[in-house]
């Protein structure tokens, strides 16, 4: 069968065979990338129009989102109040950020509100997320529902985009083959998406190629917790029916990948965030341990929001971190109570309370 146009003809001479073989294996000419041109105002406007007038019923909220007028859409993750920990305490003011896997966009719009310029990259329109072909699951059904969830999640991003009157831009495509006109960014962020991708290193390589200062990676705590070993666990066994959970990554593996990709200044913090199991609204919010690794280029260290990323604190394990958080909160409340009790207002009204207590006792 000679399906290839340059397949050789039979019984050729050695020289001719060499020529044919060279031609056959010659690298293919790069063709025009099919997904360029998305960052133009015209295309963004088209995307916006294609997602105009959505109702909450057409959206899948991955994050709990809070809009003006008290409207709150409940999602599988509620990161309200935990944003800075999740993002490694990086100060995003004035930074150009490429956010991979924005889902409903809680962090897109948070970062924008903190003064960052945002471009979000998400899965190609019409495509499902990568799924492991587990023997016990109906892969076709997962792919179909995955594509539907991806569409509804994209809807939720545009719903919020309109609500916030956001200037954030969206680009869709293949995360392993970013469009060449995506531009350059100060910071790239990956919020709990590496575990869902078949080849995390390839994806980080793509990001590294367009990022000048730092890459922020947040992941679930699954594999060994230290920075010294670089283990990742294939399809971690606690959720055998989750074909979207490809990997459990250790902080050490993320740190090593970022170091190799030219982001050797590593900082790490652990935190707990509120999550509903299976992203099911019927399930209660529980604390889930996560870690965030920030890899920076040595010559472009970013500003941090406060002193919580001191070396002392970043080395704590999630349990130690939760303990510290609880202890700090306890201390703050005790101080608050002391301050309230010693305030002039409280002291001034002491006679009233004394009288009230006496009356209560009097009337039983």
């Amino acid at each position: 069968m000679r399906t290839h146009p340059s397949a050789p003809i039979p019984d050729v001479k050695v020289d001719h065979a060499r020529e044919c073989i060279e031609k056959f294996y010659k690298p293919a000419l790069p063709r025009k990338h099919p997904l360029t041109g998305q960052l133009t105002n015209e295309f963004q406007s088209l995307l916006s129009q294609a997602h105009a007038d959505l109702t909450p019923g057409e959206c899948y909220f991955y994050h709990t989102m809070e809009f003006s007028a008290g409207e709150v859409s409940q999602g599988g993750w509620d990161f309200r109040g935990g944003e800075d920990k999740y993002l490694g305490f990086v100060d995003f003011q004035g930074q150009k950020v490429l956010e991979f896997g924005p889902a409903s966009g809680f962090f897109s719009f948070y970062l924008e509100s903190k003064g960052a310029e945002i471009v979000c990259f998400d899965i190609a329109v019409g495509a499902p997320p990568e799924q492991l072909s587990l023997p016990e699951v109906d892969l076709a059904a997962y792919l179909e529902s995955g594509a539907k969830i991806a569409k509804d999640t994209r809807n939720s991003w545009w719903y919020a985009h309109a609500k916030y009157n956001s200037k954030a831009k969206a680009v869709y495509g293949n995360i392993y083959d970013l469009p060449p006109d995506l531009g350059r960014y100060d910071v790239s962020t990956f919020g709990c998406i590496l575990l869902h991708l078949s080849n995390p290193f390839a994806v980080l390589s793509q990001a590294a190629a367009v990022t000048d200062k730092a890459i922020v990676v947040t992941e679930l705590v699954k594999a060994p917790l230290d920075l010294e070993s670089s283990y990742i666990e294939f399809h971690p066994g606690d959720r055998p029916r989750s074909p979207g959970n490809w990997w459990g990554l250790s902080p050490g593996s993320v740190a090593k990948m970022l170091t190799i990709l030219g982001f050797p200044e590593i900082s790490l913090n652990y935190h707990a965030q509120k999550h509903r199991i299976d992203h099911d609204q019927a399930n209660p919010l529980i604390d889930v341990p996560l870690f965030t690794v920030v890899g920076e280029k040595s010559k472009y260290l970013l500003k941090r929001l406060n002193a919580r990323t001191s070396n002392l604190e970043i080395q704590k394990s999630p349990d130690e971190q939760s303990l510290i958080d609880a202890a700090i909160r306890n201390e703050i409340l005790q101080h608050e109570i002391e301050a309230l009790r010693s305030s002039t207002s409280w002291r001034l009204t002491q006679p009233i309370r004394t009288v009230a207590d006496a009356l209560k006792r009097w009337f039983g």
Partner: protein
Amino acid sequence: MHEIDGYITDFYREGKSHRYTGQLSDDFQRALAKFYVDPPKDQCTFYHTMEFPCGEVVPGAWDLRRREQVYLGYVDFSGQRVLELGSATGYLGFYMEAQGAGVVCFDLPIRTPPDIIPLPTTLRSKRLYEHASLTEKLHKSWWYGHAKLNSKNKAVYGDIYNLPDDLGDFDIATLGCILLHLRDPFAALQQAACRTEKAIIVTDVVWTPLEMKRALMEFNPGNPPEYPTNWWGISPGAVSRMLNILGFSSIDIYYHTQKHRPVHNIGGSSFTDKCLFTIVGQRHPHYVDRHPMPESEVAIQAELARQWLADPDIEALNARISQLNAQISQFNAEISHLNLQISHFQEQVDALKSSTSWRLTAPIRLVGRILKGR
């Protein structure tokens, strides 16, 4: 709206085309043989030590002679169609042919480097050039052996993550010490699984800690700058889990040592024993025949498994894990206690703030703030 939807959907639709088809035809195989005709020995790199019928022995980085059966999991190859992925000099492919298999050997396209880790200290272009040259020298060594052994094995070159559409189906696929060198081992296994009806045989290097229960892989283990092609230290547990997922539910594992020259320095280093594991994953109910394991080997297997699985490091790590788990329980208890205290304190604060006393004195605080100019 429909037009826009159509435009957006079309925009993101990807085209698909395939290269490297047509290589298995006799014409093409003849052309390849002519391309690599009579390669001078000094232009070849012998990855395996090769022994030819004329008595010639060419030294290589790995000497697998007389240890082939355990390397290949005691599978009987007689009458089997075999796809050998990453054949290098081809010692095992020619061995399987001698055992009665029809073998297609798949390797990198000509003058193409393998996956290289973009290490910061690596002079990338230099490394790429070196490895592209190495691919060529390995191909030449394969064709050198092919001619000497008058082999009927066929060679196909291409992208292991996207095997040519017309490669055909096989009974068995083998991957001998190549997963550690691939950036995406699961994708390669998935490609092999799509073409394999009975069994996949994976042999890889043992990294400590040797782990069967968890599917751990260590990214770029060891000392990176010297080994830009060592992507993974893969545990047998990871290979087993991947094969299970790909439909090969019956798993057998063998441990063995093979003779290997460190850093493949054929001229400059002597052989050391390298620790390897071999996993045979089989699709139920399409099992392959197996050779019985020699009595002597049974004892060796047991001893190697005992030595490697009972690695003192593992024991130390397990002890550390137990210790950490105890610490976690203690932390959790303390956290629960502190959380109770927090609720209690929060209630106190709320009660204080909503008390009549506090509300009554609100005007005083307001005046106070005005006086303080806040």
